């Protein structure tokens, strides 16, 4: 029952918000609802027993004739992403308070609706339900970007939409195909796991799923929608996309790709890993010379997600545990970064690096928060990013030392583009605009304080979070590896 409450509370919130045309009520209502969600989530984390089992299970017959069930539950893997989602949504809502958006009630209703979709994706144990959640999360973000975005939003959004829809369709076909193979006319993930398909079938299923997930993350070379979309989207949209939505792809790979088609993974996993590693270096190098700060961070996000993806395809405990905690970390850090960039952009009315400089002098508090988030992003030890990157690289290392050396370049390249950006934005001499830059106001302080605190606390004491997913991850790794071994 707790899970039902968790999933549908945002929906209820969305309904309430859409009725209040006054901006203030809608936004405070949305914040309150999202905080209640967070409290529920924390309660569930406390109740959660960190073993490999699925807990808070719900299972209702939904459309019996088609074998569709409303089946959802939470294991250690889901728990972390649900936690991430429900931590970030209130932060993102709070971060949007600075803006006087037109028709705010629709915006906040859409955010909460999207939250429901995301929670469905991260907890669904039924293929059809997973797909419903997948699309339910996509539609709100499409509208958020299309209605509140920048100048080129329509064109850019269309591309984003077609791109992801194309991926989703492939996934839908794959899900329906799997459904048809089940002996008991089911969409249940447990039945999918039981299927014994031949390697050739698994290979094309692998690609159908992988494309959907790879587009979402995005993995090189399916990434070209991302920089444009991130840049044109309003800041809330960018935060939702980068902080939470891309984890749908990552989660999908862990839950719906590799365990469902282990032989497909055995055949094509290395290709996916290579693409991920290429993406790390390729996107990092591109980030070097970006002049638009938002676009720079967008490319950096491709690089960071590339490492997460590489760690997963290496398929061992360190790599997967690294991916789990890094999903959380990346969400926190990237939202922090985009929030900082938003503060700067709003004050200066520009996103161009060459028009900035010296802000640290006029805004020391911003400078410190920005630096802490940045250190998390470049994975300095004792910040959250280090734990993730260390485990991920160790995972990739166990796959092959060469890939680890290449993927490891991210710690050098990341330092280059991040510190270059920091230097150009914050350091050096001030110009006319940056010399009168106003430091953080109370709301901004709260948001950045929470984010910085998370960066440091997780970095210093990551064990509680690693502990949540450890049993589930090692169980999953064993299952898949056994299947691969058995088939040989």
């Amino acid at each position, binding site marked *: 029952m707790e899970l039902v409450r968790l999933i549908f509370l945002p929906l209820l919130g969305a309904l309430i918000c859409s009725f209040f045309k006054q901006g203030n009520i809608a936004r405070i209502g949305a914040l309150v609802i999202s905080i209640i969600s967070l409290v529920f989530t924390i309660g569930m984390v406390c109740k959660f027993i960190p073993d490999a089992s699925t807990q808070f299970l719900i299972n209702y017959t939904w459309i019996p004739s088609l074998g569709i069930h409303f089946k959802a539950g939470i294991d250690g893997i889901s728990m972390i992403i649900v936690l991430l989602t429900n931590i970030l949504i209130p932060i993102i809502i709070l971060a949007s308070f600075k803006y006087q958006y037109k028709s705010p009630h629709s915006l906040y209703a859409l955010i909460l609706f999207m939250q429901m979709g995301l929670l469905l994706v991260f907890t669904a144990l039924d293929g059809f339900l997973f797909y419903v959640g997948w699309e339910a999360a996509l539609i709100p973000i499409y509208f958020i970007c299309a209605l509140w975005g920048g100048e080129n939003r329509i064109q850019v959004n269309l591309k984003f939409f077609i791109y992801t829809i194309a991926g989703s369709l492939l996934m839908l076909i794959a899900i329906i195909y799997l459904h048809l193979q089940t002996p008991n006319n089911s969409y249940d993930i447990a039945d999918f796991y039981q299927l014994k398909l031949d390697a050739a079938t698994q290979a094309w299923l692998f690609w159908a799923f992988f494309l959907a997930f790879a587009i979402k993350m995005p993995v090189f070379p399916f990434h070209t929608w991302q920089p444009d979309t991130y840049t044109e989207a309003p800041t809330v949209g960018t935060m939702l996309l980068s902080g939470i939505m891309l984890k749908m792809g990552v989660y999908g790979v862990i839950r719906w790709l590799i365990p469902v088609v282990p032989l497909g993974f055995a055949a094509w996993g290395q290709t996916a890993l290579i693409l991920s590693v290429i993406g790390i270096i390729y996107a990092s190098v591109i980030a070097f010379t970006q002049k638009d700060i938002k676009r720079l961070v967008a490319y950096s996000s491709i690089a960071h997600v590339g490492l997460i993806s590489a760690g997963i395809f290496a398929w061992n405990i360190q790599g997967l545990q690294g991916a789990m905690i890094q999903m959380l970390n990346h969400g926190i850090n990237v939202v922090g970064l985009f929030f900082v960039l938003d503060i700067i952009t709003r004050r200066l009315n520009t996103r161009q690096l060459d028009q900035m400089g010296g802000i640290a002098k006029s805004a020391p508090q911003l400078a410190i928060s920005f630096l802490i988030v940045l250190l998390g992003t470049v994975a300095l030890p*004792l910040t959250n990013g280090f734990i993730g990157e260390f485990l991920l690289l160790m995972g990739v290392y166990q796959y092959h030392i060469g890939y680890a050396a290449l993927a490891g370049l991210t710690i050098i390249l990341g330092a280059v583009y991040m510190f270059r950006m920091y230097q150009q934005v914050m*350091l050096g001499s001030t110009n006319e605009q940056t010399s009168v830059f106003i430091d953080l106001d109370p709301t901004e302080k709260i948001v950045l304080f929470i984010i910085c605190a998370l960066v440091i606390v997780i970095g210093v004491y990551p*064990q509680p979070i690693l*502990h949540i997913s450890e049993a589930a991850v090692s169980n999953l790794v064993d299952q898949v590896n056994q299947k691969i071994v058995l088939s040989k």
Partner: protein
Amino acid sequence: MINLVWLVPLFPLIGFVINGWGRNVLSKSAVGFIGSAMILLSFGVSVGIFCELNAADTKAFIIPLFDWIHAGNLTVPFSFLVDPLSSLMLLVVTGIGFLIHVYSIGYMHEDAGFAKFFSYFNLFIFFMLLLVLGSNYVILFIGWEGVGLCSYLLIGFWFTNASYASAAKKAFVMNRIGDLGFLIAIFLIFSTFGSVEFAKIFPQAATMVSGNGTLILITALLFVGATGKSAQIPLFTWLPDAMAGPTPVSALIHAATMVTAGIYMIARSNILFTLAPQTLEIVSIIGLATAILAATIALTQTDIKKVLAYSTVSQLGYMFLGLGVGAYTGAFFHVITHAFFKALLFLGAGSVIHAMSNEQDLRNMGGLRKKLPITFLTMMIGTIAISGLPPFAGFFSKDEILAHVYQHNPVLWVIGVIGAMFTAFYMFRMLFLTFYGNFRGTPDQEHHLHESPKSMTAPLIILAVLSVFGGFIGVPEVLGGSHWLAHFLAPVFETPHAKMGELALDHGTEYRLMAISVGGVLFALFFAYTKYIRNAYVPLADVDKRSLLAKISYNKYYVDEIYDALIARPLDALSSFFYHVVDKLGIDGFVNNLGKIATEASKGFRLLQTGNIGFYIFMMVLGTMALLIYGFCKF
């Protein structure tokens, strides 16, 4: 006391938090007091630990705090190791660190970022202490990267100057290049030994055969890490630029913290390195090459801090040379004595710069010995110590390294002695140009000349005393000493002593070697004296023409320019190419074309939607028939 070792890094952390948080509230005297007192407390605890360890029978204590990372078969405990190596290092870091803190109270007094400065300083010491105390490679790595961060913050302390900010970034990035090597070495260590804990790795390693391929790879990667942190070829160029920060920062980076990390790490991993003689060979060659390269650059530099910076690079080269030939004790001995005299020299240079109203160019100094008597006297002691004249501190440690080098390979020894002569020359050149001759600055500067306040001269005096007597902790047997240091460190360096043997030169040879190197140094001193005092030579202005060799040395072999042309600019070009050509035209162009084809195709299909119901029905009938035919064929 040993069980309270966690207090040692905790005090600086507290200082960092208090001064960082209260930077706008606390008065300058409160900030300076808190910042220095925290380090003094750490020093006090370190002394207690040292005494207890010295008296104890066991020589290695592991103090666990909590489980930091646990994933699968990987466990990284957050725990500390107290043994002779780390306890000595604690004394150096906190002791020298404390003196530099006290000095900074005077030096930074006028700076608006006073509290920020002290909080960064405390953080620096904190990370260095983690590095020293970590009982496994991952905790060591926290400190390793942490000092990199602090050097970034402090080198770029005056960040409104764009070139200072660039120097800070350069330091961080160059360090990161080395860090990647270190990180991969950690993975390799874990996969080989199943643990990252020193106590589990070294006993296993001791049973392996010398020259084992994995060990060679591990040690080579660790050495890559060390070249970054300890400024060796090819990653040395950040250290001279690091003088962009306030002068006490240079003292901290060059003497007490940071650059000694590479030496410490290799000394800590001595078992692995001893069993990888091929890597040791590389270490000694890189060390010697760096020592000579940096020394030849220092010969012509005109910025007082640049001379000192290159002298550090050069001295670090000697330490690596020592490690490479198996003189672990000697190299570590040199870390200690170098910490004394290099802190002294940098702080002395700071005192000069302070007196000269921020002038750093040797060409504009001269004759300062009367106006700055304490600074002059102490820097003179530092110069003698670094040149290696007996019985000052540098003599004993350098002699020990060189004796081992001679036993290993006399050719390397000859090159090493030539380097030592260079050292003596450029150091006395700096001393003479600063303190002798006539004053060459502006009348305004001359008017302001003054000896520094007590908070600055007191540390100088203490460091001078250490630079004179510090070498007596390791007087070799040939000179009638008992080499206390070697005995104290013996438990740490047991394996190399067993595998590589002790120094086996007869006394006559040792005396001869000493005589030659001391003679060389005296010759260089005399040469510098003739040139800069007798002939009162002043280095050329920047616009003057130099001879080819002098030009190459003055421009630091153009290494920065070469790196820029070979790495930085090609990478930027690659970035533009990836972005504009591959990403925009290539991949995105392909995607857009797919979109266009779809649009064009749909334009065609749209024509089918005519609105003519008859046509629709016709199509439906066709479709049904097709289905029926398909069905019949199937069955």
